[in-house]
Each structure stands twice: as structure tokens, then as C-alpha cells.
């Protein structure tokens, strides 16, 4: 074989290489160079969040095997043969008003969960946050595509509808319906239908002072209200009790509701996780569930997949696991993921933490460049904006940061 060289850096190439091992130059002319962007469509690529590990962003660097350091070709190490971690294996979103973390866990090959957080400005000028977590159904084909589209569509539509003045419950239904239609559209046939669960949370500026927090769901991903510690409550306010805001569309829940089994019996059954509703081309007729809570006092909304709640099924368990999660949402999300992994990590783990009341996080709290955490509120007419990506300052540069309480004059 004639010796091949990279057109970019002249490093030696091997037959069949798609990327230059040295500089990451894409050699077949299809798509971006390695390192130029993380995994397509998720996290940084859709502007919703940050892919923190393990794919580096910024200038392409020579990357060896994540396990043994040897050369990598076509995604496999040429030494130990191990498939290299995907950019989706661990994803973190850090917005001004909410954060989330999503992790492969310890048992699954891929992370098939997705999350999206979108901030927008309500018609009254106050901030609002729409967050969606979707859990890809492992037995369906490419469930990661379903969850990604479901979360993206849901959060965007939810924020846009509310920003345009829609009633929160209706907006929640509209968003879920749009997500369901999108995911159903991925199916190439009834037998080849990517599928996922869905749970959304809508938190407005009046949350914590009697305003509604609206939850929508299909499937067994959950939302919880977790009050802050007593210290965080204003004088005269008594913390409410932690509470689950969703009821699973699962066989177990159905058995319990029918009085056929106790909660414990149902959870111990092999069918406990069998879904009776989901989003997908092969799903039963869409039955959107909506609930609301109107706490008076501080706390946080947790939106999560079963990879977390399997280990902390009761709202009290979650509240005890990470006290005062809303004080530092990203740290709390990371801690939840770590705890679930330590408990076994049998499934993908995703959790979004939204502090109540909404309040911007200190810019330097997590070491990223301040501009990377900017969060903008656009006028309703232009629709919602997404949280910017950290640490990718280039993407946030065109926007000037705005903070709650300082309505945009642009």
C-alpha cells in the first residue's frame, strides 16, 4: 500500500481511516472533523447544554484510547479493542436557572436518555423555565434518537407556547403532543418504531409564592417537588412535604391503582418496569397526564428518569439524598448521578434540577467562563431561547447576557 498522509498535518494514515488520528481531520469529506463538535444533535449541538465529558471541545487534539491510551481507529482502540466512550455517556447542562446531568450508568452500553432545558420570557416579562426528560425505550430501535427528539421538541414548544401567552396546562399538552408526533415520525414501520418516555416541568417566576408549577408526562419518567431546608424558607413559611408529581404509566402502577398488588409487591415483580404508555410510532393512543403544584416556599423541582428514582423511589428519599438541591442545581444533579451509580447504575440516569423560586446561579460557581453561562430572555415575539452552552464561549458570544428582572430592550 502506498503510504498515505493526512492532507492537513501530513501524519501517516492507514487504509480505511475516516479521521486522521493525529489532527482529527475528517478524510472522507462527510461531516465535520473529529473534535470540532460533539455528538450530533445532543447537548452542545442543539444549543441546550454542555457535553462536558469525555469528548473535548475546542481545538482538535490527538486523543488516545480512554482506557489504555493506544491509537484509536473507527471508534475502537487498536490496543485493547475497547469501544471508545460516546459524547453522550455523560452530559451536563448548566443554565442560569436550572441544571441537569445525564449519565450512561454502569450497566448499559449507551446513554439513551435525553434532557432539554429552555428558558424564555413570559408575557409579563418574568422568566420561565421549561425542562423535559425523555428515557429511550431500550427494546425499540435507536431509542436515543426518540428521546433526543422528544426532549428537544417538548422543551422548545413548551417554552414557546407559554412565552406566546398560552395557558400552562394547555402548553404542556401541546408540547407533549408535538413531541409525540415527532417521535412517532421516526418510525419506519410499526415494528421499527423508536420510542421514549416523556416528562416536562414548567416553572415560572411566581413559583414558590403560590404560582403553579405544571408537570406533563407519558411513561415512567418522573417529576418531584422537594422543599428546601427550613433555613431557606422565608419567615412564616413552613416547608411543604416532598411529593411525587407524576404517576407512572407502568404495569406496576396500574396493579397498585387497581388494588391488585401492594406497591412493594408490584415493584418487586419482573413486570414492574413494563410501560403501558410511551411516545413512538407503535404507541397506544396518546393520553397526556398533567398535574400542578403551587408551593409557598423555596425548594426545587426534580425531573428524572427511572435510572435515578429506582434507587430513591419516594420523594422523601430524594429529598434526603441531596438536601437543598435547589441551592446549587448542577452540584445537586451531579450528586444524584453519582449516588445512582454508586447504588449500581443499572440504567441510564438523568435528572434536571430547577430551583424554586427561579434564581440565577452565581456565574463562577462551576469554574466555566462567565459568558458561557449567559442566559438570555428574548421578547416573546421572537420565541424562546435556549440556554447557552458551557464551556463554549464562541457560541454565546453573539448574545448579550440578560438576567431575570432586567427585561430585554432589544
Amino acid at each position, binding site marked *: 500500500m502506498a503510504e498515505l498522509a493526512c492532507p492537513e498535518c501530513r501524519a501517516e494514515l492507514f487504509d480505511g481511516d475516516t479521521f486522521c488520528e493525529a489532527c482529527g481531520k475528517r478524510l472522507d469529506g462527510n461531516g465535520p472533523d473529529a473534535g470540532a463538535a460533539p455528538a450530533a444533535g445532543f447537548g452542545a449541538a442543539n444549543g441546550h447544554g454542555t457535553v462536558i465529558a469525555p469528548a473535548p471541545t475546542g481545538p482538535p487534539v490527538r486523543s488516545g484510547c480512554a482506557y489504555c491510551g493506544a491509537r484509536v481507529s473507527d471508534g475502537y482502540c487498536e490496543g485493547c479493542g475497547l469501544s471508545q466512550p460516546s459524547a453522550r455517556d455523560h452530559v451536563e447542562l448548566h443554565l442560569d436557572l436550572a441544571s441537569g446531568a445525564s449519565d450512561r450508568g454502569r450497566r448499559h*452500553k449507551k446513554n439513551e436518555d435525553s434532557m432539554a432545558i429552555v428558558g424564555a420570557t413570559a408575557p409579563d416579562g418574568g422568566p420561565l423555565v421549561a425542562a423535559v426528560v425523555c428515557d429511550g425505550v431500550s427494546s425499540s430501535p435507536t431509542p436515543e434518537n426518540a428521546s433526543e427528539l422528544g426532549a428537544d421538541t417538548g422543551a422548545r414548544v413548551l417554552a414557546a407556547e407559554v412565552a406566546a401567552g398560552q395557558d400552562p396546562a394547555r402548553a404542556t399538552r401541546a408540547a407533549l403532543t408535538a413531541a409525540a408526533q415527532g417521535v412517532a415520525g421516526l418510525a419506519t414501520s410499526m415494528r421499527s418504531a423508536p420510542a421514549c418516555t416523556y416528562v416536562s416541568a414548567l416553572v415560572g417566576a411566581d413559583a414558590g409564592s403560590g404560582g403553579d408549577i405544571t408537570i406533563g408526562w407519558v411513561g415512567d419518567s418522573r417529576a418531584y417537588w422537594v422543599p428546601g431546608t427550613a433555613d431557606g424558607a422565608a419567615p412564616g413559611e413552613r416547608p411543604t412535604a416532598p411529593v411525587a408529581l407524576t404517576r407512572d404509566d407502568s404495569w406496576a402502577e396500574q396493579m397498585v391503582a387497581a388494588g391488585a398488588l401492594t406497591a412493594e409487591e408490584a415493584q418487586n415483580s419482573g413486570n414492574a418496569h413494563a410501560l403501558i404508555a410511551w411516545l413512538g410510532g407503535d404507541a397506544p393512543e396518546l393520553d397526556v397526564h398533567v398535574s400542578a403544584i403551587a408551593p409557598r416556599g423555596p425548594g426545587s423541582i426534580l425531573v428524572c428518569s427511572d435510572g435515578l428514582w429506582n434507587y430513591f423511589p419516594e420523594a422523601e428519599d430524594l429529598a434526603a439524598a441531596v438536601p437543598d438541591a435547589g441551592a446549587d442545581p448542577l452540584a445537586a444533579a451531579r450528586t444524584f448521578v453519582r449516588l445512582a451509580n454508586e447504588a449500581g447504575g443499572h440504567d441510564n440516569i438523568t435528572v434536571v434540577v430547577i430551583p424554586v423560586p427561579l434564581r440565577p446561579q452565581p456565574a463562577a460557581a462551576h469554574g466555566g467562563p462567565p459568558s458561557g453561562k449567559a442566559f438570555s430572555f428574548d421578547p416573546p415575539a421572537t420565541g424562546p431561547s435556549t440556554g447557552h452552552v458551557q464551556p463554549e464561549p464562541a457560541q454565546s458570544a453573539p448574545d448579550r447576557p440578560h438576567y431575570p428582572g432586567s427585561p430585554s430592550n432589544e
Partner: protein
Amino acid sequence: MSDLPAFTVHVDQNRHLPLGSREVHAVVSVEASGGSGGAAAHAQAAEVIIIDASGSMHGAKIAAAKRAAKAAVDALRDGVHFAIVAGTDTTQMIYPPQEQLVEVSAATREDAKAAIGRLDAYGGTTMGPWLNLAARMFEPFPQAIKHAILLTDGQNHELTSTFDRTLAYCAGRFVCDCRGVGTDWNVEEVRKISSALLGTVDILKPEEMEDDFRAMAEAAMGKAVADVALRVWTPQNATLRFVKQVAPTVEDLTAKRTESGAQAGDYPTGSWGDEARDYHICVEVPAGDPGREMRAGWVKLVAGGAAETVLATGNILAEWTDDEAKSTQLNPRVAHYTGQVELAAAIQEGLRARDNNDEHTATARLGRAMQLAEESGNEGTARLLRKVVEVDKESGTARLKRNVDKEDEMSLNTRSTRTVGIGGRRAAGPGNNAG
């Protein structure tokens, strides 16, 4: 090398392994197409036909051999280089007179057939010199697709060590299809030649020879690329347990490995026309964590020579899971070919035991062979087995037949390595897979 046929590699396996498990199995299917029309017609090719001319060939056998050799010569295309050799205790050039290949043309074809017509049978059988002469005459044609046909009717009168050295020398220099006629030749001995030289072996009746030789020559003319290797990369601390061709015949290539760079070895597959072959590869790898995926084998078809070309690649994967529903599934093709390999071994072991008057082992192995042949839909082998062993339908008890025709037994032995696809050749889809 611009005219190579298009190769495809397809890997069948269950990549899901139970936690702690280390053994990865895969069936690698290789298919070459588009070669016979363009590439083969322009490929440089060389052919040597070796006819056993020992005294025992006298009569119907030598007459049939001469007709067969002429048919083969007629099947060679113009421009190919060829020679015809008579083999006895030594060698004798039939055509051309000198020990060299000549170009096929209308004139040389006629001269060769006239020379074949004058062939007589006399003397003994020493096969080493036959093969050495072929190797010598192929020497000036390094780029050519080199093929020999060897016909014998007797046993090799040569020291095993001497003959083994010859085979080692010839391996990789040319492909040799071997044929036996009558019942005085030794199947194991001739199979040793065809295995070493990546060819086929079969038993022929005199009346079958002409068609068979023509077919062999035509197949040789259909080859478009020579010296293709199956290159298998394995991870650090992995062990390649075996590489076996499992279709169209069983051929263990494990011992034929030559190292080809870090963590990789080449297994010779000879020359290819438009054809499909399957390989069963087994790799032992270090066990991985749950959810971890490993490339347990990286298979490349590599065309040889200085300008090495990778024709196609495929991945053998391993993925560890605690989901038993996934890890306990047998891949149907892996299971099927595991059964076909066991079938070939059971026949050969059974016949060897029978030769050694070990009736107990012979009955057990041939009975098992019958069960495997019938279950897997290998009707061709089952038919041959029925001439040697009968199995009681009710009890399943096997019994060796008495007074077995020697030719039937040799046919069974020779053809024991022929495999069928899943469910037999005609059936499609996953059927009654063995194992």
C-alpha cells in the same frame, strides 16, 4: 490491481456475552463478485495438469484421464501459460517437452492434446517431485493466478518427512485441486496436499473425470485475484483460538497463520473468482465490564503482493451484559457451522476407528454424524453416510453396515468436509440448526 472483484464481509454473531465470559465466536462471510467478467478475463493465469501415469492407471483409468486432460486444455483461455506433466516415480513432461510453461493458443492447445494422446502408464508413484516440478515451472510467473490439477490412483511412495518438506515449500506458491480415481489411493494423504495447497479433494469414477476436469479448469479461469489473505487483528491479551473455513468445505486455517504486524496474523485463502466462503473465528479476550463494548476481532481481506490492498473489512464485537435474554442466545449461523464442523470430524474419526476395528467408537461417531447431517439438512452427506451406517428410526441406535463398498467409504471420507448453509442448501431462513 485495478480490476479486483468487489469483496464484501459480513459478520454473524451474538456479541452479547455474560459477565466474566471471554470466548467470542463469529461467522465471517466473504463474498466476491464482479470478477469473472472483467478481472478474471484479464488476469494473468498459469495452469499445470499433473496426471498420475503409474502402471496401475493402465486401462480405463488412463484413457479417462487423457480425455479429462484434453477437456481441461480446451477450457484454458488464450494467453494463459500451461503445461501437462506425467507423474510416476519421477516426472515426465507431456507438453511442452521442456520443463516450462507455454502460452495457450489454438496451436499449442492442439499440440498439447496430441501429446496427451501419446501418454502411457508405467512405473510407480512419488508425488513430491510432481509438485516440485510444478512449483519450478510457476516460478517465472509471480503475478499470475497459479493453479494445478493433480490426479492420482495410488499411494505416495515417499518418506513422510521428505513429502512434508515439499508441501511446506509449495504452500503459497500455487493452489492445487486433487482428485483420486479408484480405491487404492489414500484419502488422508491426498487431503494433506489439497489442504496445504488450499485446493479441493474429491474421488472420481473414470466416467466422471472429463466433466470434472473441465469444471476445474473453468473455475481456475474464473479466478480474478490470487493470494488473498484473511487478516485478523485481535486485542492485546487476546488469544485467537481458531480460524476455520466452514463453507463451502471445512478447512482449519489456524496453523497457517503468519504474523502481519502488531496483534495481527494472516491466514491464506488462495485465489478468488465470483464465490462466497464462510469462516468461523473464535477469539478469547479479557472479560470486560458490563456495558463495555470491545472490538474482539478486526477482519480484513487483503490482496497480496507488494501493493497490498485491503478488499473488505468487518468487526467481531464483544459486549458484556447481565441481561441473560441477550447473552444466552446462540447465533443460528455460528451454531449451524459448529455442527457442520463436528459433522466432518465425526465422519473422519468414525471411519478411522472403523479402519482400526474399533467398532464401538466407529458406531458412536458415525451415528452422531448421521444425526448432525440429518438435523442440519446436509442431505448429500447423509446419503453417503447411509451407505456406511444405519440408524434405527425408533430407537436411534446406530449400526455399522457390513460389506461396505470401498468406494462408498472413500466418497464419504473425501466429501465429509462439504457443508451446507442453514437448513440445507435449498432452504432459506433459520431452520433446524444443530448444536
